[in-house]
């Protein structure tokens, strides 16, 4: 069994409370860092560890921290924790915050110290209402023990953590929209540049990181950056939380070492436990709804026939033709009973609903996609709609302010690339699909890798 770093003590009763967490070795990292390390040394360790953003984009965290504008000491610097986890299929941050909140608080204290942020915010989605209480209790406990507030552990460093709730908008998970929302404005993404590292919250230098990224700072400080970098393969270092769902025997949140073979993750009893009994593996969205969907066989083996690993690089091998992305780790598995058209309609309905409406390609395009897919799914589609969908997706992709446009376009392009016959089936036999919940097309063929 692989070593767990974040979820090591997840099954210990009462790990939510400060005392139990402390007894299990919690806040060791803060003690170590505050007594023996300078802020820059923490940043160096994070850089050495090769930690990459766990929210989806996989940008190296140490590098992001080093971009923070430190040239204006009169301006406060902010650290914002992005807990607006709204990607369909992703629920790893919820699990972490709900069951072991202190690991996040500890990570936040360390990161705030490294970045010099005296006011640190956790922006959490409004739907996680009960977690707000959990976090605030944890913050209260940490404060009572002197790990937060004024003059932490006698170092003269002050830090407060504030929990702010969103109001249920997916777009507020985009870092600049999150900052706008945090400032009390409409959550529209800002036009970049300037980047938050220079002009972030209230116009001050800001770093926005995902919950899991910040939590991962704790093991990095405990074991040292070099040691952490030994876990994993190549540029994908450390452990990653994967929230597995869909047609598998054991859905749930798993912490894996990056570099685990996908076959083992999917089929071993330690993790997903295989495709639900009696069914065949059809397709997978390996990193949350915005990443391209790929057929099962292409997921297990690349076009060259190499087995894939659970890493940022291996999953995206083959690019958009035959690969996907690790994304945020929302692992959605589908067996042969899934209708890809219906699945895609459902996704595009989500993006249509969540588009902020600021820039035209995304505002109008997502609605258009949804309407066409709705028609196709309900037996009113035509053959030419399929090419039109690809065209619209191409027109949206890359032409928008924020990545939501890309996120809406990629699933459409990939689903049609790999499962075109299913779309054609829907267009050709409207009365077989119309008005029925039985949404399975005649999909009995063996799956072959098709690359266009």
């Amino acid at each position, binding site marked *: 069994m692989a070593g767990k770093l974040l979820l090591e003590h997840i099954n210990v009763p009462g790990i939510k409370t400060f005392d139990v967490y402390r007894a299990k070795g919690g806040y060791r990292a803060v003690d170590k860092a505050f007594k023996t390390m300078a802020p820059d040394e923490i940043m160096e360790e994070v850089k050495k560890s090769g930690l990459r953003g766990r929210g989806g984009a996989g940008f190296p965290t140490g590098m992001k921290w080093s971009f923070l504008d430190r040239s204006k000491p009169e301006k406060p610097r902010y650290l914002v924790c992005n807990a607006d986890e709204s990607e369909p299929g992703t629920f790893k941050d919820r699990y972490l915050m709900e069951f072991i909140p202190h690991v996040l608080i500890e990570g936040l204290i360390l990161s705030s110290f490294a970045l010099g942020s005296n006011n640190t915010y956790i922006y959490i989605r409004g739907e996680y209402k009960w977690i707000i209480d959990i976090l605030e209790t944890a913050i209260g406990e940490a404060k009572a023990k002197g790990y937060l507030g004024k003059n932490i552990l006698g170092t003269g460093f002050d830090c407060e953590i504030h929990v702010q709730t969103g109001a249920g908008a997916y777009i507020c998970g985009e870092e600049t929209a999150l900052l706008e929302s945090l400032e009390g404005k409409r959550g529209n993404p800002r036009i970049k540049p300037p980047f938050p590292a220079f002009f972030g919250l209230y116009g001050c230098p800001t770093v926005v990181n995902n919950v899991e990224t910040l939590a991962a700072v704790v093991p990095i400080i405990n074991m040292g950056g070099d040691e952490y970098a030994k876990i994993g393969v190549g540029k994908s270092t450390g452990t990653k939380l994967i929230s597995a769902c869909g047609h598998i025997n054991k859905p749930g949140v798993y912490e894996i070492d990056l570099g685990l073979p996908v076959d083992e993750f999917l089929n071993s009893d330690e993790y997903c436990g295989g495709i639900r009994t009696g069914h065949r593996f059809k397709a997978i969205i390996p990193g949350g709804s915005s990443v391209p969907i790929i057929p099962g066989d292409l997921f297990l083996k690349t076009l060259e026939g190499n087995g894939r690993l659970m890493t940022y690089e291996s999953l995206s091998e083959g690019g958009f033709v035959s690969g996907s992305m690790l994304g945020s780790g929302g692992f959605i598995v589908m067996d042969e009973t899934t209708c890809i058209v219906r699945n895609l309609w459902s996704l595009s309905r989500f993006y249509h*609903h969540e588009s902020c409406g600021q820039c035209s390609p995304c*505002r109008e395009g997502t*609605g258009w996609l949804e309407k066409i897919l709705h028609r196709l799914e309900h037996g009113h589609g035509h053959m030419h709609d399929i090419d039109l969908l690809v065209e619209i997706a*191409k027109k949206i992709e890359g032409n928008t302010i924020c990545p939501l446009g890309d996120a809406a376009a990629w699933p459409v392009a990939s689903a049609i690339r790999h499962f075109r016959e299913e779309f054609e089936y829907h267009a050709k036999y409207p009365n077989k699909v119309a008005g029925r919940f039985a949404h399975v097309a005649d999909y009995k063929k063996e799956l072959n890798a098709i690359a266009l």
Partner: protein
Amino acid sequence: MKITIDGVEAEVEPGTTILNAARGIGGELVPPAMCYYSKLKGSGGKCRTCLVKVTKGSEKDPRPMPKLVASCQTPCQDGMEIQSVSSPEVVEARKGVVEFLLINHPLDCPVCDQAGECHLQDLSYEHGKARSRYEEERRTFDMIDIGDKIKLHMNRCILCYRCVMLAEQLTEKREHGVLYRGDRSEISTFIEKAIDNEFIGNVIDVCPVGALTDRTFRFKSRVWFVKPLYAHRDCPTCTGKTTIWLHGQEVYRVTARKDKYGEVEEYICNTCRYDKKSPSDWTIEGPATVSRHSVMSATQYKEGIKVEAPKKIGYGNISPR
């Protein structure tokens, strides 16, 4: 700093955006802009019609930019090389944006007061496709009166946010903004109330389409049947420099003066705009300048209007066909 747009070299000040640099050069390569408004802080970046391709980032870092960029928001770098109309990719992307802007637009130009001076009409004529591929139902809204002078026709709105930025500049509180999100977003005042500001009538002028129209002019005349004249009056609130639109001896409407990119030169007050509707209120300076491509240059009032000389190409930037 030296930059190159479509092979044309130009010298620009540091901090100039690509769009403004292109406007300095003029001609066909100027990207169209539906949301950027040089007089409004924070405008731009939203409509994506001004997309250009940067083939060389700068002298220091010659890598091309990975995506098309919004020229109204991207500052020039020394040695930057940009493609506007010379890149098929850009032309294709603009076509796509125009198509997106039109799919939910009612296309009610025959009964729209803005017809003839509408930027969306010009844009779709120059950059759009002849046919629509949109078969779905268009989204609709109810019309709203913002006070007794302004009509908000949300169906026509392209959500350029210009009026939002203007109201933000004029008023202290956030009184005029956007409700909801995605393609259901709509412009609204807090909430459906008139904004009490002497200059709020200018939202009509900054609106590129017929979403905000002057209720004192609605359905009175097509714009090409009224004659624009520059006029001024002694106004205690604004500069009083306006364009008045005459029909015979009647002043049908008063608007601010606009430059060749359709941007207001000086904001005018509500009194000038709505209440001074008699020729005796105004000192007429002479005919207003109209682009020779404008529909207004082809009317019965041709003699009365100063039509721009052919070499200077106006808002439309169309080459003579």
